[in-house]
């Protein structure tokens, strides 16, 4: 990776996504820079996954432009996809294939030359050298996430998209994943992740966007968002320990109502 830190590798402008009459994403614009971890926060149904799916090319937006590493996802979808690595929310691979076979399959798809030694190194790096012949479903949640991340980054993409990557992980696995994300950022990858964890957003994200009802409410660094909204009455009302946290700001901006 030799990306110039600070240059935009994902540019989303005026994105609109609808499912029938339901307008899921409304005129959303943001960018992700090389060497940056960008977090997408929002309650259930806020439009995070729809935005991510539009970037990944899994759904067609009604309007707006998305460009990955300078390639328009509508005009040059394969070029855009070649520059991104994706870790889906519910990743599943062919249940009959072993871990090693899955890695080989995706290396082949991306035309990555994968020798036995390289495969061994990858498996050692994710501490799965003794589980290479196991099926994906036989792995623990943390092990599955490590395999998914290896596959998402096997072709060394400039942009990595991660949809709620730490959901269901124990604290050790979550910390390990954060370290891997930070390592990728240090190497110049841009990372866009969605999360429900305020702790995660504060711990690893350089910038975050808070979404609700399909709109981006605010984009900034976690600390700047806290500072900007700390005097907002709704935020103060949401505060539980006297000290304003990112979660208080989030609740203050998106409301206390539980979303389904």
């Amino acid at each position, binding site marked *: 990776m030799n990306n110039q830190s600070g240059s935009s590798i994902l540019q989303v402008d005026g994105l609109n996504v609808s499912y029938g009459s339901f307008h899921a994403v409304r005129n959303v614009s943001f960018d992700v820079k090389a060497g940056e971890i960008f977090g997408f926060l929002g309650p259930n149904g806020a439009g995070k996954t729809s935005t991510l799916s539009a970037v990944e090319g899994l759904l067609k937006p009604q309007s707006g432009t998305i460009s990955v590493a300078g390639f328009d996802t509508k005009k040059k979808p*394969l*070029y855009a996809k*070649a*520059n991104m690595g*994706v870790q889906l929310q519910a*990743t*599943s691979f062919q*249940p009959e294939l072993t871990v090693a*076979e899955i890695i080989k399959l995706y290396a082949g*798809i991306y035309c990555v030359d994968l020798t036995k030694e390289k495969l061994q190194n990858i498996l050692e790096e994710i501490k799965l050298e003794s589980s290479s012949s196991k099926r994906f479903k036989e792995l623990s949640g943390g092990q599955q996430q490590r395999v998914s991340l290896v596959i998402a980054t096997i072709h060394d993409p400039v942009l990595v998209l991660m949809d709620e990557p730490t959901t269901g992980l124990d604290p050790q696995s979550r910390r390990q994943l954060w370290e891997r994300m930070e390592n990728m950022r240090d190497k110049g990858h841009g990372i866009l992740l969605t999360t429900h964890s305020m702790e995660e957003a504060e711990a690893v994200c350089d910038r975050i966007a808070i979404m609700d009802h399909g709109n981006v409410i605010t984009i900034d660094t976690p600390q700047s968002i806290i500072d900007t909204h700390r005097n907002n009455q709704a935020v103060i009302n949401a505060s539980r320990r006297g000290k304003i946290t990112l979660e208080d700001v989030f609740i203050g901006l998106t409301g206390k109502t539980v979303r389904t």
Partner: protein
Amino acid sequence: MQTVIPKTSAALLSLLRADFKTQWRNRRSVVLLLLVPVIILISWKGLIEQMNKAGKNGGAFALSSCITIGLTAIGLMGYSNAIARDRDKGVFQRLRVTPVPTWSIMASRLIVQLLLILLVTTFVFIVGSEYDKVNLTPAGYVLTYLTAFVGGALYLGLGQMIVGLVKNAETVNSTTRLVYFLFIMVGMFGDLGVLGNEFQKIIRWTPYGTVKNILASSMQPSNWDNTSTLALLATLGYALLFSFLGIKNFKWNTN
């Protein structure tokens, strides 16, 4: 930075390798898929002799029926259920975010099914020759392989239509079982005349009957007539219609 798009041929090769491995790991279901037509063929030894004595070509009747049953099982029981399961599990979504054309994901699956068609047809030929002493001319064998692919396309199209119209994997499973059972029971008994003459005539122009007709005619190329040509056209029509409806309504995910 220069962006390199993976070659479709290389990606297709990787997909094929994975799909063949998946099929190999599911070899028990392949054995079951082969067993049904083979058991029918073995149990029809007496019927073949009876038909031959009555001046009808019992060998062609039995072989074409058994290949049709095998093709039905491939399209309905194998292909559609595998697609429904992988769609439900998100396997396709994971592949769709890679820089490979989506047609190559399905092409790889279909190539594996074509090999299964070849396998079923060959098995029926071997059992027919070894056990029932039914042998064809070289032209008959070649033509039958070709028409087996056409018939297979019809049943793969039917499987695609079911998986396109039905989203839930469990419902796809029960629907295909029901359709398979109907095709086999109604098709086979109707074709034998057990359900009456009118039914026998109708069955001849159903997807079961047209496939069986073109297979039986291919086994004796000299007997290929206008009815066989019409059956071939009907088979192609069914295949195109089912595939069109299946592709048009197909969703890559169940959400």
